[in-house]
């Protein structure tokens, strides 16, 4: 079984400031890791994912996340946020060979003008 902990339920940040959304996981097997984003009144959509290879993965809109096996973390970062990044962000984990995708409880990012 696996679990996900998103350490912050809400993160307010000023526009153009950097942000880090924290995610820790637990699993007894190797994992696949995901960040999904949910904009207001919409469904979730994939932001980025780690399957294997380079531990640093990037999205097309400037977010990046680094898989850290020793710390069992997959924190999401962006060096300069925009108003349009206001959304809820969900970290998710699936164990290799498992069918189960487990979501964290979400972090609401609010970008302040």
């Amino acid at each position, binding site marked *: 079984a696996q679990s996900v902990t998103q350490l912050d*339920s809400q993160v307010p940040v000023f526009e153009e400031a950097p942000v880090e959304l924290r995610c820790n996981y637990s699993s007894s097997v190797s994992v*696949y890791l*995901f960040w*999904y984003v949910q904009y207001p009144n*919409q*469904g*979730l*959509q*994939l932001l980025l*994912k780690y*399957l294997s290879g380079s531990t640093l993965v990037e999205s097309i809109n400037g977010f990046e996340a680094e898989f850290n096996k020793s710390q069992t973390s997959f924190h999401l970062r962006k060096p300069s946020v925009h108003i349009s990044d206001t959304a809820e962000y*969900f970290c998710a984990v*699936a*164990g*290799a*060979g*498992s*069918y*189960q*995708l487990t*979501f*964290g*409880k*979400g972090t609401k990012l609010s970008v302040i003008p």
Partner: protein
Amino acid sequence: IAGITQAPTSQILAAGRRMTLRCTQDMRHNAMYWYRQDLGLGLRLIHYSNTAGTTGKGEVPDGYSVSRANTDDFPLTLASAVPSQTSVYFCASSVDRGGADTQYFGPGTRLTVL
């Protein structure tokens, strides 16, 4: 536009009534899922289907049933709605039900049970 559609967008329902939430995908994905999203709890899997003709139980299946008669449709039925089933329901699909597969989500159905 390819993707997942859900109907209705929102619904207010009296307790004890039967309700079916509809979900259709046009991506020819094998796997489909139903989640509920509640404030502070994130998304929880209700039921899933690996392929047409098969279904399975997720984390919170009680009070819900599903069917998968064909590849495209995956309806979720509440046989006798209760207030604790007030939630936002999301349907999702993926090419296959593998841990590495990206899941694609519909826009959601907001259900209120009074």
